[in-house]
């Protein structure tokens, strides 16, 4: 065989490499770290949801808990953001992302204790940070509100986790490197780069003037773009073909999607500063990169769609796929919105409005969080060798989450657009003592109220998820003996 062909043989999935390590062994060896991260993640999800509800109600009923200092709006809003980001989302990424990495590497797990130590310290760091925010020690830097003193602790924990992931990859079973592994490996390098540069340039050795704002939004946007997004896509790329038992449509599209994401996303954060006092070429470059994000998004959407097409019933039946497909569709939609919002003519309306908040939840919840839910639904039965106790609770989780986030997105996007148009109209006052007058506040209030309703739906979803998970974890042994996985719709055959 020519060297040329043998090169392609390495990436040709048809060539069987006999795995030396069974998947069930990987699952078993990963049990403790995955459980640690998943349990912490779900607890943070509940805590973050509580903060979110309080913050949301304060937007239309400001008298609520107004005299209780730790839960004043400025603190509780940041507590919500940080609990969800560093508590829920990162723990979920560590659990699902590292587990997928371990499975795809098909090697025995080394140094699992590294993960346990890192996981414990990470969660201690986040706890200190959230307490710091609630007691008034927060910084004014969005996405980095935790007192800067916890930065080194989080960075240290992360380094252990990142190194573990890279070591896992280093000791993988040789052969084809699957697309999910590219994304996870990339993200493991990108996140520490983002975090350390941001902490250094904003807190430790502060850069001058607007460079701080630039660093802030480069970081804030890329936490989603170069950390959650690749991890979420890795989960979709692994779980979609895995559950359906079909290959991913095209290796070439995967390749194009990965590299165009790596190339363009890093630039895009500057669009948060459109109209700000930074040189205009930086902003224009950010806008172009934001629009260029259409390329990886279209490519990934086609690849996922062609892999899943014609399997609607299987998608409906599998708890994993329901969430994953919801997440994948939201990724496409949220990214198109993001590219559109980066244009100056649109941004002049959406900037400084609830529209942006809606867009952030579109990405982090409708895409990322739903995908992680799907990942946990797939992962836990294999980790615990138990089945999900209740299909009903999964359905409650899915429907409340799907309807809740849908409602929130409509409320914030429509309300935010109206708010933006009003803000640009000098004839409309922000507030007027005359209650019948047309004011920005008055027009926005019903939309903020419906956002709170959607928040209650999401709370129900999260409690259903938590109860189901807790029952699975501590419930009677009998759940192990059920035949086959917990599915959401009647089986026709097999599956």
């Amino acid at each position: 065989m020519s060297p040329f062909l043998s090169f392609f043989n390495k990436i040709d999935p048809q060539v069987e490499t006999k795995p030396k390590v069974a998947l069930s062994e990987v699952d078993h060896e990963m049990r403790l770290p995955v459980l640690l991260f998943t349990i912490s993640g779900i607890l943070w999800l509940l805590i973050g949801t509580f903060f979110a509800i309080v913050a949301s109600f304060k937007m239309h009923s400001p008298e609520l808990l107004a005299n209780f200092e730790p839960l004043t709006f400025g603190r509780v809003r940041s507590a919500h953001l940080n609990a969800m980001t560093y508590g829920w989302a990162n723990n979920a990424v560590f659990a699902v992302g590292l587990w997928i990495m371990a499975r795809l590497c098909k090697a025995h797990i080394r140094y699992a204790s590294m993960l346990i130590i890192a996981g414990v310290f990470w969660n201690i760091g986040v706890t200190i940070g959230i307490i710091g925010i609630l007691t008034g020690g927060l910084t004014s830097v969005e996405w980095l509100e935790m007192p800067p003193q916890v930065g080194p602790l989080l960075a240290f924990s992360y380094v252990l986790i990142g190194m573990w992931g890279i070591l896992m990859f280093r000791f993988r079973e040789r052969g084809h490197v699957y697309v999910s592994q590219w994304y996870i490996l990339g993200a493991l390098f990108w996140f520490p780069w983002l975090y350390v540069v941001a902490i250094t340039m904003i807190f430790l050795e502060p850069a001058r003037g607007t460079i701080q704002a630039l660093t802030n939004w480069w970081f804030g946007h890329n936490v989603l773009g170069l950390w959650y997004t690749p991890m979420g896509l890795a989960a979709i790329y692994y779980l979609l073909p895995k559950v359906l038992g079909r290959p991913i449509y095209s290796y070439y599209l995967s390749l194009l999607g990965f590299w165009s994401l790596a190339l363009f996303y890093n630039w895009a954060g500057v669009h948060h500063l459109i109209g700000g006092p930074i040189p205009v070429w930086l902003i224009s470059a950010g806008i172009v990169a934001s629009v260029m994000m259409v390329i990886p998004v279209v490519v990934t959407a086609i690849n996922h769609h062609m892999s899943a097409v014609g399997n609607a019933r299987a998608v409906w039946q599998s708890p994993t796929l329901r969430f994953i497909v919801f997440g994948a569709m939201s990724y496409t939609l949220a990214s198109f919105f993001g590219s559109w919002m980066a244009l100056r003519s649109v941004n002049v309306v959406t900037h400084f409005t609830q529209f942006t908040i809606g867009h952030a939840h579109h990405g982090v919840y409708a895409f990322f969080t739903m995908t992680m839910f799907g990942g946990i639904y797939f992962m836990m039965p294999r980790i615990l060798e138990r089945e999900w106790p209740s299909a009903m609770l999964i359905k409650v989780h899915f429907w409340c989450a799907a309807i809740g986030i849908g409602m929130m997105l409509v409320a914030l996007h429509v309300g935010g657009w109206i708010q933006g148009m009003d803000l640009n109209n000098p004839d409309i006052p922000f507030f007027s003592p005359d209650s019948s007058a047309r004011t920005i506040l008055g027009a926005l209030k019903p939309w903020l109220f419906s956002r709170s309703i959607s928040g209650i739906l999401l709370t129900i979803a999260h409690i259903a998820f938590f109860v189901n998970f807790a029952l699975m974890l501590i419930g009677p042994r009998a759940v192990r003996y059920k035949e086959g996985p917990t599915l959401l719709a009647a089986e026709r055959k097999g599956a």
Partner: protein
Amino acid sequence: MSDSPTNRQQLPGDDAPYDDDDIHIIHSQLMREKDEPSEGFSPVPIVLLFLFGGLVFWGGVYIANFGGKFRWDVYDPNWEPGMTAGPAVKDKWKTGERLFMNNCKACHQENGAGVPGSYPPLAGSSWVVGDDHRIVKILLNGLSGPIDVEGSSYDGAMPSYGPSGAGWDDFKIAAVATWVRGNFDNGAPEVAEETVAEVRAETAGKSGAWSGAELLDAHPF
């Protein structure tokens, strides 16, 4: 962290006996697990190439039009070569109005009439018009104690906007003084930045606010 892999990997035929439940579990684990994911090699649809070509072209045009020629000192997306770039032209009237609205309006009111008994008026006040050194001194060091303005007496304290207060530079002091002197039908001439610099140098040793008597001695109406 747990039992070693060799203990774990029990295969049919091993010494360890299985009971029915174990076999059931192992089988369901095997049955549910589909193959690890793989990739097909379908080609990239050709239409995407045109889409991407179009996007890249648009990106180039956008940067060419709104990129400010990659200059560090261009902040306006509609900047063209030849336009004055960099710091905006200093306009005393614009700056003065902004400073007045943000700092003076709360006491002296938007129409400059002040609040009878509490804050003296600026509109039609002999303290404002005439010798411009007077208003500049008040702005630089403040004014406290009883004064008489157009027949009404006031006893308050005007804060300093100079070195012992807000720390405004010569341009800002000149701007707000010009605006106050030129508005409210006061019709007094502009105050030059140089005048402010002169007064600032003259009164460098002065600490605390002026009194009305001090000012009237130096600059009578």
